[in-house]
């Protein structure tokens, strides 16, 4: 069982047994009833989109853009091919929810994509699956086969005259391919590099055709919105933050894993569900929305509720819902060094500020961590991040800068100590005690 805990779950409801992912089980749980009803009633496209708008479902991939609004940008009457694309290129450190959705509830995504395709007059869809979770890809292919065999995909679905073909496409593990336009380039067989926008995918997307790209969890939520009604979905969460959401809790907790909770649930409740802090230590900081979101100090985090608005108020982002918990044994310089290395490594190298800047950031943080820091390094980091942010083709430059800015902002004394004393403020034995890897020696 993948979802370790839930409050009023939707996506993770009833996922018991080894066959929960199969079509038969999904149908038993009420699956495909929404699609069947829409097709049988020949529900107007506008009504489907309105229902999604009413639900205030916000994009689960990270940006939190209202899904209904995104769908309404699609030029439905535009002649020719249109595409819906599912972004399952889950590569952000800390995020591991989409793989579980695809592993345990793949048909919810298939149904959601079919409904989306219906609402936007698309006839083809792709699910781009991260290359490092191969077994998820093969499972999704199996689920597709089941859906095709049952006539839920393909030509003239359920005799309605609606055609929709869905294909799985696996990447090779590049983080940047999670950026929607890089993902499109990658599906097209090109090097995964973001396109500059405008034009946006809604007008010039996959193969130059109108395209809507949503996250796996977003598509997975659609069947619930359509069967429960948009308002009911909204009420499941809180105002302006509709529905429940999966949170991938990792780090210094006793039970790291995925948890489905209504948006607006207090952070403390989530922390409790995850078994509380490991070793009973104090929460030092939390990265609430995947590694690119700014870190939030523990005391502020404890006062937050898990929804887009509350986290934004705390100066961070709910992002993809990847909650990284760091206790007091964490050296924040080392943590930042690891994050900066990730963004340097994953920069696509296309545009100047990101290509050169991420490398520069990593080198400076690496230097500080290794006792080579210089007095003006913190100002230098601030200046370099300012030169990256807002000047790049895609958001990776921002994603690389925000951790640096927030870590220095909240833990400046630790960085300063590192630079001055050439060693860590958190004693090494404390770090080792907290790491979990050095148990034998301490």
């Amino acid at each position, binding site marked *: 069982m993948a979802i370790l805990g839930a409050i009023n779950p939707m996506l993770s409801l009833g996922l018991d047994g080894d066959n929960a992912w199969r079509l038969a089980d999904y149908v038993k749980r009420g699956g495909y009833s929404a699609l069947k009803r829409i097709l049988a009633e020949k529900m107007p496209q506008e009504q489907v989109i309105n229902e999604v708008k009413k639900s205030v479902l916000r994009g689960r991939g990270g940006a939190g853009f209202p899904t209904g609004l995104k769908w309404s940008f699609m030029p439905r009457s535009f002649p020719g091919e249109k595409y819906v694309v599912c972004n399952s290129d889950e590569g952000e450190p800390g995020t591991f929810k989409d793989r579980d959705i695809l592993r345990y509830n793949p048909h919810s995504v298939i149904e959601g994509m079919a409904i989306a395709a219906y609402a936007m007059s698309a006839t083809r869809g792709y699910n781009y699956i991260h290359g490092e979770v191969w077994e998820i890809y093969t499972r999704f292919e199996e689920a597709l086969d089941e859906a095709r065999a049952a006539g839920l995909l393909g030509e003239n679905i359920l005799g309605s005259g609606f055609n929709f073909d869905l294909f799985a496409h696996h990447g090779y593990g590049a983080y940047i391919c999670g950026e929607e336009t890089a993902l499109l380039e990658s599906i097209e067989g090109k090097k995964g590099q973001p396109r500059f926008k405008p034009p946006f995918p809604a007008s010039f997307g996959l193969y130059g055709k109108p395209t809507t790209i949503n996250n796996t969890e977003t598509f997975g939520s659609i069947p619930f919105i359509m069967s429960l009604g948009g308002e009911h979905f909204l009420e499941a969460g809180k105002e302006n933050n509709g529905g429940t959401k999966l949170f991938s809790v990792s780090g210094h907790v006793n039970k790291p894993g995925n948890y489905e909770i209504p948006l607006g649930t207090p952070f403390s409740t989530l922390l409790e569900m995850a078994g509380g802090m490991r070793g009973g230590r104090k929460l030092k900081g939390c990265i609430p929305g995947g590694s690119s979101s700014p870190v939030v100090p523990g005391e502020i985090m404890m006062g937050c509720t898990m929804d887009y608005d509350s986290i934004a108020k705390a100066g961070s982002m709910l992002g993809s819902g990847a909650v990284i918990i760091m206790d007091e044994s964490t050296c924040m310089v080392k943590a930042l060094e690891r994050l900066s290395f990730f963004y340097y490594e*994953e920069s696509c190298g296309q545009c100047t500020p990101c290509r050169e800047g991420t*490398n520069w950031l990593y*080198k400076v943080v690496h230097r500080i961590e290794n006792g080579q820091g210089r007095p003006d390094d913190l100002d230098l980091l601030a200046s370099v991040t300012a030169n990256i942010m807002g*000047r790049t083709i895609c958001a990776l430059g921002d994603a690389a800068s925000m951790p640096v800015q927030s870590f220095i902002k909240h833990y400046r004394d630790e960085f300063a100590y590192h630079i001055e004393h050439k060693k860590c403020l958190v004693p090494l034995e404390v770090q080792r005690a907290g790491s979990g890897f050095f148990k034998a020696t301490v």
Partner: protein
Amino acid sequence: MLEIEIDGKQAQVPAGSTIMDAAQLLGAYIPHFCYHKKLSIAANCRMCLVQVEKAPKPLPACATPVTNGMKVFTHSELAIKAQKGVMEFLLINHPLDCPICDQGGECQLQDLAVGYGGGASRYQEAKRVVFHKEVGPLISMQEMSRCIHCTRCVRFGQEIAGIMELGMANRNMHSEIQTFVGRSVDSELSGNMIDLCPVGALTSKPFRYSARSWELARRRSISPHDSLGANLTVQVKGNKVMRVLPRENEDVNECWISDKDRFSYEALNSPERLSKPVIRVDGALREVEWNVALDYVSHALKDIAQNHGGEAIAALASPHSTLEELHLLQKLTRALGSGSVDFRPHRRDFSADGKRAGTPWLGMKLSEIKDLDAALVVGSFLRKDHPLFAQRLRQLARKGGKVSLLSVTADDSSINVHARLTVSPAELVLALGGVVKAAARQKGVAVPSGLELVEPCASGKAIAESLLQGEGEKGKRAIFMGNVAEQHPQATQLHALALELAKLTGASVGFVGEAANSVGGYVAKALPTALDGYEMFAQPCKAYLLLGIDPEIDCHNPQQAVAALKQSALVVSLSSFKSGAALDYADVLLPIAPFAETSGTFVNAEGRVQSFNGVVRPLGDSRPGWKVLRVLGNVLALPGFDYDSSEQVRDEILPEGGVFVAGLDNGLDSGLSDLTLAPGAAASGLQRIADVPIHFADPLVRRAPALQQTRDAALPAARMSAATLAQQGVAAGSQVRVKQAQGEALLLAVADETVPAGCVRVAAAHASTAALGDMFGAISVERA
């Protein structure tokens, strides 16, 4: 139209324009690297970030579309801060080795660093090192650490040259520009990447480290090679041509030149240059003074005219000669009493002469190609024969124009073609006839007589269909006759069929022309009234005047040409070079100046008159060809040779002046009346297909060392399809003896599926195949 205000200056721009377009319109400079007006927008250098009112962050001017009422600030605090920030990033890993960099002095990064760079670097870490790459003889990629990843070279390959030869491998700061593993850059337009590179990453291999850009004088010239007449800037140091760059002319070469335009200058300083007049005395060649040589020629010509009649003299010029040289040569020859003068040594079928309605030309302006809906190119090794003309067709196809090819090999044209029909040379007429017939049928009109037995194939029908689309609208469809169509033994039939197809479809007919003065030769009337360029060797003459030509390489049938020259009493060769064969048969060698050392005029394919001056003094004792012919006329005491300048000669040919020559017309007086096409008439044995490889096409490129090391200058081989190889019982990779008439050549057999069945592709214009005969016709292959 949209209103935009940039730095307080207002302008109106059409919808779809970017801020960069508007800025250029207003003359406001926005710093940039990756942006280039002829390439797609990449927006990756981020140097052109500007402030836009109401936008929260700076936006790239090259990629941001103008919206109505937009206010842009290119030098506001926000914009300058962004630009300086990007410049710092560009410089942190750049080696800053300007003092030893070839690009120094003409480097965009260097120039912009003065304005936007800091005095010292805040970057204290180790700099990136990028390994050098070996990509062939033309482009140096020795210092790739200088690369700023603007991808102009990559986009040039994808979009302009049509082959993606360079790409950006790896990611993050380890991104590097490289070829596909181990490949070299071989496109015939590759040198343009050197111009496009905004830093010193891609530099010219032949020019490297030979001069600094500020030491060079810039002089204007015109390319003497293909029929496009590319405009050149020739850079000179002292009295030496150091390099050649494109001179932008949107109507002709845009901002590009082909590699042979760019690198042929190396031959100007070749050790093979002829620098003094030479005459044969008692069987040995001896250097003499000009007056001695010209006296000798004058006496010898007079003797032959007296003893054998003027008609025993024949004159053959290279179509790469200037208009003035061609005019004086024909004037001199006619004054000596001979009508045997020609400038088309590669031609076989001259039956159109005397029936032409005017001067054959492209049929349209080069700049009109982009407006076509459909084009058919008949008989051409398109990319190699006409690199920049092919580039224009490539752009046409990219924008949705239907470009079709009917030719004798299926070479990669790097054009997204609509339809392609590849047939043996013997079937070329039949295939074009098929297209004509398909067009007539699709249009529902009577099939022209003579085509009753022809049956069009599917590709032929598709070609006809594309040419018929939107019929009636003028200037939307064109038929272009390539070099093969002109060199073909039934060139006039092809011409007549093209005219017939044009009549049915409303398309224009044009000749692309093989050389710089393929139109100019007609204008200069360097045309035979007696023996033509082929017959003058088939029926040996007593004396030959050769102008800028190596007949053993440049003729349709070199075997026959050399035999005729060897038996003649007098061969006078006006040439810039001494070639091995000429030393054997020539009695007099007169050194004439190549294009860089003489004034003159080329008339390009569209009839554009492009005059130029010499950019350096003639080497040694060589003299401009027009002066040599003028003095020879004086020594022969012929009337009308008293010119003071090449302009006087030109004005005699073109008294009306003007940018384009008058009388351009591709019509033929007689139509298809005497033509009957019957399938199955094709020859049964093996046929030869001869191309003129791009870097053997004229005496200059043949002697340019860097060009001679390219893949395009590889030794000719006997290329056949695998089936034909098997039929002949030879294995690919083995030596074969190729025979034509009395001549033979030992060549390597190569399997090549682009060659139609029953054909062998053996390149002309090379010493190793000079012993062979006609470019098209029967040939045999046997194991060596």
